């Protein structure tokens, strides 16, 4: 009971409430601007939240995470352009609904199912996170190493079109993490006499560079003069009882899919939304309406993508492995505050876990209110010229990064990471595995070396949990390769059939 009271008490602090509102505003705006992703915004905000108290900082970052999940639906529905990748599936039925003059209905329905999806997944977090963390407390070095490998391989298989490039990116991240002091003996590695490198590369700067600056540079690179034509006729706003009843089944399905996908390390709302939409279509009595303005399709897509939030929070807080890209940035910030997400968080700071859950739930309810009240105003934001947005993002990235250490060296690292991130993006190397490798590298190395020194290499395969996780990691890497080989064989098969038939006729 004390833990609950202690966990909820910080929310009564006026400064935390101000942080909550600021985060919500930023998150909703960020979501509404196509091209500014949640991870980019949280990376950007991570810079200046490091000067705040941990609870205040978490209030800002978590509410940006929640708010972006509401804002990104607006451009998806009105201009057929997802505000963030998590809203990709929203465009499939949201935009057709808007073209039918039901934009208002689509926006309100989307807000309701998004709220429901997040709240259901948060209930799962409250029920499941502690038992998972308790199980993980029994993990030895072999299991911890296997867990990191598993998280990294899932990230690679999800974020990379080329598994080879994904693995190389992951190794790159692990390699960058070796700069500085050895985690076991304290020996200097790759420091080259530069004092700043002694404590390793500043990972917040690297994260802001790879996610924020690289994304901005990519937009500058590909930008063409387009005229946005948002749907101007919004129509009626509130769903009828019949329409609400229509959304019940896809909502239930989406909640389950989203939460499960969210729990998988590194899998986010974009994947969950598409899976949820596809499954709902298969189960619907009117599948032919999907993609042409189906309220069921919209409900399934938005519930699934939003329900990943609680799932990914569970993985992040209980295991210390990021549930998605935003959580990777969040872990970086928490480490700087002296908080280590993972099983020990539940025994060392149980009230903080309650605070985090409370922030998520309050942010969700407030986001629903804001999105219903201010929807008409937010639609106008889509007209904001790019030159303000780009210049604003860049200066906030620079100043935000500077404030983490008050040193220009950190900002140079961010700029370098941004240029590297752009090169990686244009050549198909995913940034996710680099960041994950950088964050979890010391954990992986220290635990592998401990395993080898104490129990020998056989412990990795004789310990059941470690063995299962390593097998799952191998399966995770092999599955996309096998799927691609099968797909290419299937594609080649029709062209070979006529030849074979011609051969037989000869």
């Amino acid at each position, binding site marked *: 009971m004390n833990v609950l009271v202690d966990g909820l008490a910080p929310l009564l602090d006026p400064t935390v409430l101000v942080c909550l509102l600021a985060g919500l505003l930023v998150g909703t705006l960020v979501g509404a601007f196509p091209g500014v992703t949640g991870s980019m915004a949280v990376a950007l905000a991570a810079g200046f939240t490091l000067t705040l108290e941990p609870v205040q900082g978490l209030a800002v970052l978590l509410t940006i995470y929640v708010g972006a999940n509401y804002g990104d639906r607006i451009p998806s529905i009105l201009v057929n352009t997802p505000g963030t990748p998590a809203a990709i599936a929203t465009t499939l039925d949201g935009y057709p609904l808007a073209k039918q003059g039901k934009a208002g209905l689509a926006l309100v329905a989307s807000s309701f199912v998004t709220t429901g999806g997040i709240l259901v997944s948060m209930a799962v977090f409250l029920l499941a996170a502690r038992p998972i963390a308790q199980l993980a407390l029994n993990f030895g070095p072999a299991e911890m190493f296997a867990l990191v490998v598993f998280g990294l391989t899932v990230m690679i298989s999800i974020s990379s079109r080329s598994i080879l490039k994904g693995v190389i990116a992951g190794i790159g991240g692990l390699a960058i993490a070796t700069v500085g002091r050895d985690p076991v003996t304290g*020996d200097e590695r790759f420091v080259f006499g530069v004092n700043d490198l002694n404590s390793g590369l500043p990972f917040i700067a690297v994260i802001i560079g790879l996610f924020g600056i690289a994304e901005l540079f990519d937009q500058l690179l590909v930008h063409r003069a387009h005229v946005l*034509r948002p749907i101007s006729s919004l129509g009626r706003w509130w769903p009828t009882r019949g329409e609400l009843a229509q959304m019940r089944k896809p909502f239930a399905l989406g909640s389950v899919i989203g939460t499960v996908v969210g729990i998988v390390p590194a899998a986010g709302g974009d994947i969950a939304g598409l899976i949820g939409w596809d499954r709902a279509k298969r189960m619907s009595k009117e599948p032919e309406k999907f993609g042409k303005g189906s309220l069921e399709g919209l409900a399934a897509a938005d519930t699934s993508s939003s329900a990943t939030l609680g799932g990914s929070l569970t993985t992040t807080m209980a295991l210390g492995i990021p549930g998605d890209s935003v959580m990777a940035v969040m872990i970086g910030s928490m480490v700087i505050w002296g908080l280590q997400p993972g099983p020990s968080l539940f025994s060392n700071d149980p009230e903080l876990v309650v605070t985090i859950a409370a922030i998520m739930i309050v942010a969700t309810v407030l986001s629903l209110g804001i999105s219903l009240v201010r929807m008409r105003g937010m639609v106008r934001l889509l007209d904001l010229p790019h030159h*303000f947005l780009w210049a604003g993002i860049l200066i906030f990235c620079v100043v935000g990064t500077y404030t983490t250490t008050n040193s220009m060296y950190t900002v140079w690292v961010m700029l370098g990471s941004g240029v590297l991130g752009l090169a990686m993006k244009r050549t198909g190397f995913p*940034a996710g595995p680099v960041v994950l490798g950088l964050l979890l590298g010391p954990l992986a190395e220290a635990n592998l070396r401990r395993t080898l020194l104490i129990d020998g290499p056989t412990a990795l395969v004789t310990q059941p949990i470690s063995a299962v996780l390593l097998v799952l990691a191998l399966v995770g890497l092999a599955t996309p390769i096998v799927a691609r080989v099968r797909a290419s064989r299937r594609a080649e098969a029709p062209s070979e059939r006529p030849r074979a038939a011609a051969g037989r006729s000869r």
Partner: protein
Amino acid sequence: MNEARHSQATPSRTDGVAPALGSSDEAAVPAAPTSRPLEITSALGALVFLGALAFLARRIELRAETGGVDPRWWPELLGTVGLVLAVALLVVSVVRPASRDDLEASTRAGFVRVGITVALTAAYLVAWPLVGFLAATPVFLLALTAVFGGRGWQVLLGFPALTTGFIYLLFHTLLEVPL
């Protein structure tokens, strides 16, 4: 982390045409073309990086030579495994360069915009410690806004002045970060 797959995963995409950020479906833009030289260059980049890692890992100076699983072991392992994978990537790049249809094609104006932005940011990072935040930032923002297409004195002067003032108030005054 999944942004790279963003347009790839969009079912409405047609082959060779990626949906643009900030565009409607009526204004589709061309996807980036497959490029063997680019793939080979990136594979060579990975090869050099991971080769350097393997090479430099062997030259790490230790306070006590213990052999076996010492501080050199992990980076050396990463470098060696990475080197093998980079060679494999180089072979794949030559034989079957990867498709880039999940990316929007870059433009000549885009390269110029990125080049100028990087140069301006570097100049700003040099100028900030020399002339101070309040002098360097409005000039930097004015230049950026002009490069990004902003026109008119209200945009070119008003936006940099307001943004600089806001950042200064937020960070220097409110959060007490010395700028």
